[in-house]
């Protein structure tokens, strides 16, 4: 069997490796000098502030046969804004076209399992939004998506779920949204591979 693309990021060291692109930095993005601290993205407090890390549209992962794993957290459970861990088709919008992700929804205090071609399909995760680190896994299959949290299957999407229609890149975006106020997320592991 041929080897397929496989990527691991430890978020440990002096700074973020240069193969990442910070496509928007309306805030800070820094390696944390703290035990298990990983890498932290923090927005400014104004509305519509974004901090986005991605592969600058180098899309090496299949929308129908790939896995995204991240160990990450949101720092808030209420108010406005969101953090989005997943595969993205583009780098422009908060959730660009052709993306799949776990997205914190501070307004509803939930994690959302989102998928998008040109419209967004959103299903509430079974995981209540908290400020702990969690392991998020998203597996893109030919005609379904499986979302898992901390090793347990969370949500399975099949049928009509706005499956991404083109290839994707690893990403983490944080945004204050329309409400303003600082939004923050940390990540200390990411693994992506095609299946």
């Amino acid at each position: 069997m041929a080897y397929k693309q496989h990527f691991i990021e430890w978020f440990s060291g002096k700074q973020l490796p240069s193969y990442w692109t910070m496509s928007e930095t309306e805030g800070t993005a820094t390696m944390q000098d703290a035990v298990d601290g990983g890498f932290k993205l923090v927005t400014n407090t104004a509305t519509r502030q974004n901090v986005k890390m991605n592969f600058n549209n180098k899309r090496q992962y299949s929308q129908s046969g790939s896995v995204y794993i991240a160990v990450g957290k949101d720092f808030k459970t209420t108010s406005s804004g969101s953090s989005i861990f997943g595969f993205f088709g583009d780098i422009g919008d908060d959730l660009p076209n052709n993306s799949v992700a776990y997205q914190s929804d501070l307004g509803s205090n939930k994690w959302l399992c989102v998928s998008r071609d040109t419209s967004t399909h959103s299903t509430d995760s079974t995981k209540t939004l908290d400020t702990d680190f969690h392991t998020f896994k998203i597996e893109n299959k030919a005609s379904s998506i499986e979302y898992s949290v901390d090793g347990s299957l969370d949500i399975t999407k099949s049928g009509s779920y706005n499956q991404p229609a083109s290839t994707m890149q690893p990403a983490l975006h944080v945004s204050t949204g329309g409400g303003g106020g600082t939004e923050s997320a940390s990540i200390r592991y990411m693994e992506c591979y095609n299946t």
Partner: protein
Amino acid sequence: MTDSIYDQLNASGTVAKQRVVETFSGDALDTDRWNTVAWAGSPTSGMSNAVNGGYNITCTSSGDGESIGFGSSRTNGIAQYSYNSSAIIFVETVSTKTNISVSSSGLSNEIRPDGAGNNASLHVIKSAFTYFTLRTVGVAGSQTDVSSSVTQDTAEHVVKIENKASSVEHTLDGVLEGISSTNLPVLALQPNFGIQSSVTATVTKNITYCEAYNT
């Protein structure tokens, strides 16, 4: 077998703690991850152009010293590993067992080659020693040295140092060789690899693998 490295490294349902794996392979040291801190003199360092070559730090003059770690300077490190629940595994050699003032490898709060400072758990080689030694360094710079049963040599060794709640364990080539329970570190740590020469002679430390993780 699962394709996921994560699933191979972590029990099901476990939220992984910080981990890093460095293979010291490429055209240069990954300076996004590592910083080279010159301690004294004019040591040289770089990736080796040899089979199993890894990364070399070479001292040629008396007192030369250099170390690599995760910080932007000796005292400004990115310390992501716990002083009482972490481990580091590495593969290293030294080119000679003489002419070494200190070779220190392990986890340290500072980036320094001399095995001193504060807060560290280190695999230490010195010309003055007969055996490979575990050194723990406490908050006030006090040190505890625990000799292993393995005579210092120039062969390649796999070293593991595990920081536990009330001790530090030193394992060489899969055999537990020493335990220190005094002068333990009390601050967060980062990987640190350094060497300092004692005379004007060529002394090289070579590293081919490093893995650190919280437990």
